[in-house]
């Protein structure tokens, strides 16, 4: 695979910190990845590891006033989004990069109709002379498989189910025909059957529009179903990136390995589900070495002193762990 081909979004050494009264929380601390056209990259990790902060940094909507992007580049089709002004950024949001938020119950404004809220997403962008905005809004609803769009346009959010609301949020996200869609745990708040329908819907939209998708989740089942590649995040950094199958079959970072071991399996009988002992280090007080060292089964002295660089471990597969270092020192 040509590594430069079809790259829509490239994130280089992104750092986004939260300046709180307890100190500087390094929520995103040197994150790099690429996203190609039509591809889904899963961003996996436990709660509080910086997944959502990474997503919000890409659209520059960190919580104010605490959140700030400190360093790095977010290259969207070659343009650095971090160098743009706020008004230039507004032209990017919704039209070139969109995001689906986690909780459909709170993502829609309770006092405006569904129609108003979709129209707003359309009206913001290119004006289409031929078809009326309302017709396009109805079409947007039809695309996310919302029945009776004419009536739904007049409904208020509280009159809809959670699954239906999340479809509307999806319709809003893709209304501006973006190149990149960030989906931040879009199905966490939905029940299982609705989850599968929603994921299938996202796949369908992606197949049609060649969207590049960054799928934030903590659910390996969803990763297996949705993602071409996976990036595993731990304490503000990506520790391993690789093709989904390769990473599932042979994880090369002890954290990924431990995460996989804690996923319940149908075959075989396990008395007790293994879990990872301990807690991730506090993000406002990080150790100098590997952040997983304290919980790692393979920890060595060096791990506590030096943070391991990201090393290739296979085709398009890399991990940041000293164990992957070629045993013979080349220098």
């Amino acid at each position, binding site marked *: 695979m040509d590594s430069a081909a079809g790259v829509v979004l490239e994130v280089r050494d992104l750092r986004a910190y939260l300046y709180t009264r307890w100190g500087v929380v390094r929520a995103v601390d040197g994150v790099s990845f690429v996203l190609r056209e039509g591809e889904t990259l899963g961003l996996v990790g436990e709660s509080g590891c910086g997944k959502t902060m990474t997503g919000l940094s890409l*659209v520059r*909507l960190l919580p104010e*006033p605490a959140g700030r992007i400190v360093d790095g580049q977010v290259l969207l089709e070659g343009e650095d989004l971090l160098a743009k002004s*706020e*008004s230039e950024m*507004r*032209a*990017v*949001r*919704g*039209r070139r990069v*969109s*995001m689906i*938020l*986690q*909780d459909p119950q*709170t*993502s*829609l*404004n*309770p*006092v*405006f109709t569904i129609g108003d809220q979709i129209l*707003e*997403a359309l009206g*913001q*962008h290119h004006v289409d002379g031929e078809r009326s905005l309302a017709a396009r809004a109805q079409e947007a609803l039809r695309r996310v498989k919302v029945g009776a769009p004419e009536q739904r346009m007049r409904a*208020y959010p*509280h*009159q809809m189910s959670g699954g239906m609301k999340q479809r509307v*949020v999806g319709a*809003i*996200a893709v209304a*501006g025909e973006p190149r990149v869609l960030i989906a931040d745990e879009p199905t966490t708040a939905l029940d299982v059957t609705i989850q599968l329908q929603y994921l299938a819907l996202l796949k369908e939209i992606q197949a049609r529009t060649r969207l590049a998708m960054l799928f934030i989740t903590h659910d390996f089942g969803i990763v297996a179903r949705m993602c071409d590649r996976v990036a595993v995040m731990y304490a503000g950094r990506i520790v391993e990136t690789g093709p989904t199958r390769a990473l599932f079959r042979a994880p090369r970072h002890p954290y990924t390995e431990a995460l996989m071991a804690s996923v319940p399996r149908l075959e075989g009988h396990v008395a007790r589900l293994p879990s990872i002992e301990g807690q991730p280090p506090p993000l406002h007080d990080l150790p100098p070495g590997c952040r997983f060292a304290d919980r790692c089964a393979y920890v060595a002295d060096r791990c506590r002193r030096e943070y391991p660089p990201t090393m290739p471990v296979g085709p398009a597969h890399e991990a940041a762990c000293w164990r992957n270092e070629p045993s013979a020192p080349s220098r």
Partner: protein
Amino acid sequence: MQRFVLRRLAQSVLLLFVLALIVFALARVSGNPADLLLREDATQEDRAHLLRALGLDRPIHEQLYLFLAGALRGDLGESIRYRKPATEVFFERLPNTLRLLPLAMVGALALAIPLGVLAAVYRGTLVDRVSGAVAVLGIATPSFWLGIVLIYVFSIRLGLLPSSRMGGPSHYVLPTITLGLFLVAGMMRLVRSSLLEVMGSEFVKLARLKGLSQTVVIWKHCLRNALIPVTTLFGVYFALLITGAIVTETVFAWPGVGRLTYEAVIFRDYPLLQAVILLKAIIVLGVNLGVDILYAYLDPRVRYA
């Protein structure tokens, strides 16, 4: 919606009945009006005559029956001081209070909303802190003190504005400021805090994700939601003022229902006091109903509940 209004009306009627009982009882345990109305050299006969004229010689349950039966017909007795039906006295004074209101209310809203929005948007900055300090001052300043200070400065020292009574437009300035400052302060703080709460919600993030500008997000998406609790406070204030700002009207000798309430108490004009309290209660209940209907307009979740 209709059922909602009907239910609220039924509740109001019940409330009024209970209130009528309380008012009736209070007027009779707070001293005998005959003692105040009679001259010091009045004879025992004069006293008996007066009590008979006022109906106070009858057994208490009969007095109550007559009071309630009269109230149902819209007859709340005759004012002892004005020698006119009490309701008539009340409705003569009500327009004066109403004339003072719109300016103070509209002015307060017109100031409180933008100031509250500014304080929320620039939270933590100098703008926010100054407006917060002014608000605390506004809430903490008693109306009688502010009124007197304003009269002292603008009427007595500078001689710019009239100190009391109704008259031309200049008469409205000081009472309006006295009423308005109190309102602005409270509402501004509420606009700020409820806006801040709304600004943190997910739908605001989604609105910004659509590429909407900060201005549209704040004034359209946030403010409409933030105004829901502000409406409550507005209703409370409105009811409070429409029934007469007793202190302000007294300080400025403004002949509204607030001052009338004060007079009725001071002169033990108990039929007038009963009438004033009941009529005010009806107004307050009406305003509350209006606020509930306004809620339904602002928040569709109420409309369809």
